[in-house]
Structures are given as structure tokens and as C-alpha cells.
């Protein structure tokens, strides 16, 4: 089982000791209650703000940036409105465009609908994880953890990719690292991007290749080497 001190050498950021603020968006009181309970027991020091509509969520975001957004896709636009997946997706699009650094966990029964925002997910710089509502509490909390660490986890989104679909930029990173043997700094120079972006690309590559902290920890492997092995296996580099 995953515990709270999972971290990855190059991406991981130790969990801050200071009080954090989470924004939880869900229109079901019951679900909201359950989620709050779990989060509170896992993160005793967090400050949790809740919102039940998309408009509400936006208002909160404008006033203070949370460390994590836990979002249900099926929400109403405004008070008394009808809960719709499209509203949640549209909110996601807006948030990811305006708050590229925001860490997000989507908790929903309709995670499949996320294939429609794949571009935003892949370009998103903050953490992004997905938790199906039927996921056991412990795993759901692990996803929240990963999002806080800035990781991307989209394996649960059925049909998001046909096998191994990647962006040309990620492919270039892979090539420069494993064929030209370059370090992130050199890769950044070669591609005229920031090192930060290179690290973002790496996190996306891990997600595509299905390399997540749990595996790395269990096997005690170096994540980069693991990535190279997997990439060669799949024919991404030859």
C-alpha cells in the first residue's frame, strides 16, 4: 500500500509542513462529507474549502490558489442547475488554461469523458491524476498525493490513447536523453526550452509508459533507467 512519503528524486517535493489549502468541488453533500473525512484524516493540517458548482469553484480560485483541486466532473454550472459532465469538462479546460501550475485530481464516475480534454491534460504543468469514484479510499488518497507531487496519472482514462501515443516533443526528449545521452540541462538547451519544461515532459513520458512511483519504490529501480528499458522494449528508441 502506498504511504505518504513516496517521492521521486527529480520531481518529488517533500510534503510541506505548513498548512495547505485544498479546494474540493462536488455537488453531493454525502460524497463531499466522505471525501472531506478521508482528506482530513490523511492531511490533518489542511485547510479544506468546498464548492458545489462550477461558478463557485471559479470564485474560490480567483481569491486564493489552492495546493490541490479535487474535482467531480458532474457538477452544475450554478446553484440549482443540472449536474452535467460537460460543465466539469469546461471548467477543467478553463482552469488548466488559466492555472497551468494547479495540481488537480479528478474524482468522478465518468472519468472516460476526460478523453475530450486530452490536449489540456498533456500540456498541463501541474500535477494531474484521476480517481474513479469506485476506487478504494487508500488508492484515491495516493492519487491525491501524486497530484500534489506534480505527477501525471491518466492510466485510468479508457481510450485516451491508442497504445503508445506521444507528443513529438516528448519523443525528442527521449531521443536526446537515451540516444545522445544528454542531461536535462543540455536537452533544454538543444530544444530551446526551460529545464522545468523538460522535467514536465519527463513526467508525461512516465505516465505514457506507465511508470509510476509505486513500481519504482517496490522494485528499487532508477526511474530513468526503467524508462529507457521500457522505451526500448516498446520500440520508441532503437
Amino acid at each position, binding site marked *: 500500500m502506498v504511504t505518504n512519503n513516496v517521492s521521486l528524486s527529480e520531481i518529488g517535493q517533500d510534503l510541506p509542513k505548513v498548512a495547505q489549502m485544498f479546494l474540493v468541488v462536488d455537488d453531493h453533500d454525502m460524497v463531499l462529507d466522505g471525501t472531506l473525512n478521508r482528506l482530513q484524516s490523511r492531511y490533518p493540517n489542511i485547510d479544506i474549502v468546498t464548492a458545489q458548482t462550477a461558478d463557485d469553484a471559479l470564485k474560490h480560485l480567483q481569491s486564493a490558489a489552492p495546493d490541490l483541486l479535487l474535482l467531480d466532473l*458532474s457538477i452544475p454550472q450554478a446553484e440549482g442547475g443540472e449536474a452535467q459532465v460537460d460543465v466539469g469538462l469546461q471548467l477543467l479546460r478553463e482552469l488548466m488554461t488559466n492555472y497551468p501550475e494547479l495540481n488537480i485530481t479528478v474524482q468522478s*464516475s465518468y472519468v472516460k469523458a476526460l478523453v475530450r480534454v486530452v*490536449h489540456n491534460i498533456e500540456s498541463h504543468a501541474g500535477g494531474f491524476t484521476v480517481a*474513479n469514484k469506485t476506487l478504494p479510499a487508500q488508492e484515491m488518497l495516493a492519487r491525491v498525493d501524486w497530484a500534489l507531487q506534480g505527477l501525471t496519472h491518466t492510466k485510468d482514462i479508457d481510450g485516451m490513447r491508442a*497504445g*503508445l*501515443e506521444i507528443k513529438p*516533443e516528448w519523443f525528442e526528449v527521449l531521443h536526446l536523453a537515451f540516444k545522445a545521452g544528454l542531461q536535462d540541462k543540455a536537452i533544454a538547451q538543444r530544444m530551446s526550452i526551460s529545464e522545468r519544461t523538460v522535467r514536465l515532459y519527463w513526467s508525461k513520458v512516465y505516465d505514457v509508459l506507465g511508470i509510476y512511483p509505486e513500481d519504482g519504490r517496490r522494485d528499487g529501480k532508477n526511474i530513468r533507467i526503467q524508462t529507457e528499458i521500457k522505451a526500448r522494449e516498446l*520500440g*520508441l528508441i532503437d
Partner: protein
Amino acid sequence: MPQDISFTKRVSDLFLRVLPGLGVTGLILSARIFGLLEPLELFAFDLLLRLRPYDPPSERVTIVKIDEADVEALGGYPIPQDAVADVIQQVQQYEPAAVGVNILSDLLGEAGSEQLIEKFQATPTLLAADKILLPQVAPLNGTPPEQVGFSDIYVDNQDSHLRRILLGATDPLNTKAFKFSFAVRLAQAYLEPRGHALDNGIVNPAAMRFGDTELPLLNSYSGGYVGRIDDRGVQALMNFRNGPEPFPVLKLQDLSSARQAADLIAGRIVIVGVSDGDARLPIKTDAIANRWGSSARGNTVDAVDIQAHATSQIISATLDGRLFLRTWSEPWEYAWILLWGTIGLTVWIQLIAPGRILMYGLSTAILLMGISYMAILIGYWIPLVPPLLLIVLNGFQCVILNEYQGLQARSRERRRIANERQRTIKQAFNIIHNGPLQNLASLMRSTQDEDIPKPNLVAQLIALDAEIRQISDYLISEAFTKESSFYLQNDTKLDLKLPLHDLFYQVFSKTLERDLIGFRNIKIKMRSFEPMDEDNLDFDRKRELCRFLEEMLCNIGKHAIGASRVQATGKINDDSYVLRIEDNGPGLASGRKGEGTKQAHSVASRLGGAFRRQSNSDRKGTGCELSWPLKSA
């Protein structure tokens, strides 16, 4: 969903449409070559001729008819020759330009032959008729040979109608002797004093010529004829004078009335003949409108009328420029037929609605008939029936094909809906199972284990109720076809309300999931589509662009066998969006290029953009690129 047909589908549909069209064209062409259309073509020819405006009675040729009663009065058969001489004498007193006696010697008796011969010998413009085709009928003994022309006629053996005239022929019993027809002799007698001498043709030495007017020759393949007519001798198509009264006709008793006869004879050609159904077979023609009007068929005329028409035709051609009927050479005729077949195939075969097909078919047919009629008016007999049949048959097969394709599309649609229902049911079950059922189970457990305060229980039940309601909303929005729905070829449904770049991602994913031979070795699937301002793109444009991406990827799937990498990118470049699709397969093989390219170009032109396709010569693979301006950028 007619607008939802993909490029390859459209290409194959078009092929499916063109193929039967080509079959129909081949059918019509071979039917013509084998002569199956000849009766129809001759029918149409006659029809067009008799639909022409009426000609007034001729002012150059007058007919004197000796009917049964006259023969009786002259002494019955055989007609005494002095009686004929007497008729000639009566005609001559009104000073005709020439007189032709179209009475063969087999009808004449012996009595008074010296009198008649004397008349011939004394008058060079008095012409006699003989018959040179077997069985021959010799001219009267002692007639000067240059005053004799043969009166043989040819009728078409298909339907015994007369459409041709024989201008000259070799005597079958004396192959060295070339003889002129009675009509040519009469025309010569009329035209030579007016300065138009009879000679061989200049353009075609085998043809005849009066002055500058060459009489066009007929051969056995002219017009609708397919080589089955007897084309011996010098022949031409008969250009009848149309109308119920093409020539003034005098009876024998009219000759004694000077007032009536003088005007109709002085200075004219007078042809004297016998009109007696018992003695001479009437000749069939449908090419002249008679007193019953242009619609009447089954007309007959006397042999003497035929001679008058032939003579008048030659004289009018020489003096008035009233043309002989001409035809195109065979290659032109077939080119003409193919042209109309092609118009049917390419222009209006793309229509769907039977009403429009009918409308276009009718207007094409009317245009064709109009052209054929105009052509006849200026003296050209051009193919009408074969192209007309092509139009009709193409129209029929067009309607039938549409019906067939419509049926196919409907059954595809039914299958798709059935699949979708099944998916929806499965999906609904999953959602219910994963969501409310779980919550219900946990609620039941907790009510058994502990005492839950009533308000709390009510709140949970309300939440459960809301959750269940939400499922139906979700299913309605997700699972059923909407106006903005778009289906990929593997029936994946997309919603065109989504941003275009997000749609591209889905198109890419779903298309590469297909089991196409070119996708089997692909290891690296790279794609990246930047968002764009898409205010100027409506659903149709977005649908077309998604189709385009799908089609280009499918091309790779079908042709880039062995490719290991495919890349699709959408980037904003200045003020335009550039969508590029590349692979590292075997490159552009011949035959691959045309596919979808036309449609791609038309998509590009509708967007005001451009489409390029290139084969990378330095490295492997192909690439194509569609770019269009982002208007509101």
C-alpha cells in the same frame, strides 16, 4: 447522413456510379455497331425531316400526273405512244424549260411510235426514262442516249422506305457505261443553260458537281446506317421538300385550260408520269408531312413525285444553296455519342434526388433533341437516338443506384443504432453498479449496524435519488445521436461541439486503433494539436476537417505498409493553421496519389487554404499538409 460520407467512401461510391454508366455506354455503342439501333435512328431521321417547316410548292418543277381515268381515256394499257406525244405537245405549247417523260416503255404500246421519236429527236430538252437495274427496261427505240436517264430508286431493305436517291450508276450489263439518273438529266437540262455545267467533284472526284455545287456522297455507314444498305453507284440522301403540297400537280384535263397551265409550266421543268397504284407500286416515306400533318406516318408517294423531289433537290442546291443532307464521319459520330454519355456520367449522375435526376435528364434530352433538330435544319443528320438512350439509361441507373445506396446506408445506420443501444445499456449498467448501487449497499449496511438519525438518512436518500437521476442525464447527453454528432468509420461517435484540436486527438486515437495493414508495425504514434480560434468553423467544416485527418491516416493504414512511425501535428503558423500528417512508410507508390487528394483540395478551397502532398525523396515516407487561414486571428 449524406454529408458524412468519407473520402474513400465517396471515391468508391463515385466509382460504383461511373462503372454502370460505362457499362451502359458500352452497351449503347455495341448496339449501334451491331445495327440494333438502326430502325430507331431511321425513325428519328424521318421524324425530324417531317417536323421541319413546310416548303411552299416548288416554282421550278411541275408534275403532270396521268391517273387511272386518264389512262382509260387515252386507250388503256398499253398506252399508245401517239397519245403520249399528244400530251407532250400540249405541255410544250406553254414553253417549259424541260420536259421529262417518266413513263417506262413497258407501259407503252407500239401505235404512233414514229410521232413520239420525232418529238424526242426534235427537242433536246425532252427527256425519257429507262431502268438500268435488273430487270432492265430499255428506253424507246431511237431516243438519243443523252436524253435518257434511269429512273431506278433504292428503298431501304429494312423497312422499304425511300431515303436515298441514285444519281448515277454503271449499267450492270455493260460495266463500261456510266449512266445518269433521270433527275440528274432533268437538272442538267435546266442548269446548263444557266451556266452550271455537270462535272466531276473537286473535293471528291467520285461525286457530281453542278457549277460550284458538289453533291455530297452517301456511303453505307452514313448517319444511322450501319453498313447494310446497297451503296453501289453515286448516291445521296433524299432531302424531300416538306409539306402537303411540295409541287404543283396538273391533271391531264388541266392542260387544256390555258389560264391554269401556263403559269405552272412556262419556264419550268415538267415531269409527266403515271399515277396508278395498279401499274406502279406506291413508294413509302415517312419523311414528308402530308395533308394530315407532321404526325402522320405510313405515307406513300408516286414514283413521279420521287423524281420531282430529286430533281428539285439538285436544282435548289445549285441555285439556292439549299443543302443536301450531310452526315459526320464515323469517328465524329461516336465522339458525339460519347460526349453525351460523359455529360450524363459526370455532371448529373452525382445527384441524389430522383426529381432532380429527372429534371436534369429531361433538360439534357431536350437540349440534345433541339441540337439534332437545328442540325437537320442546316442539313446535318447527326446521331440522336444513341445519345438519347444513354441519357435515359444513365438516368435510370442513377436512380436505381441511389436507391441501392440509400438502402445500404439505412441498414448501416440501423446497425449502428443497434450497436449504440447495446453500448448504452452496458454503460448504464456499469454506472448504476459502480455508483448508486454501491452507495445503497453501504447505506443498507449502516442502517443495519447502527441507528442513523432520520434527517441524516433522508439526506442520504435524497443524494441517492439525485445520483440516479444524474445517470439518465449523462446517458442522454453521452449516448444518443445529436445534431452535432460525428461518426468515424469505425462508428466511434464524436461531438462536434468540442474544440477542434480535442477532436483531432480523438480522431487520431480512434483511427489508429483500426486494424489496417499499415498500422500493424507502427511503434511510434506522435501527435500534437494546438488549440486555435475556431469561430469561423461551423459543424460542417469541423466535420470535414476531422474526415480529412481520418482519411489521411487511413491512407497510411492502407498503403504505408511497414511504416513504424506516424506523426500528425496541428500548429499555428502566423495567421494560419497547419495540419501535417507524415509517415515513414515505403513512400508514394503510383496510384496512391489520386486518392482523397481531390477531396482534400476541395476541403482546402472551401477553407480558403491549400493542400500539399509530397513524397520525401531524401528520406522514406510521405507527408501531406493542409493549411487554412485563421480568419479572426
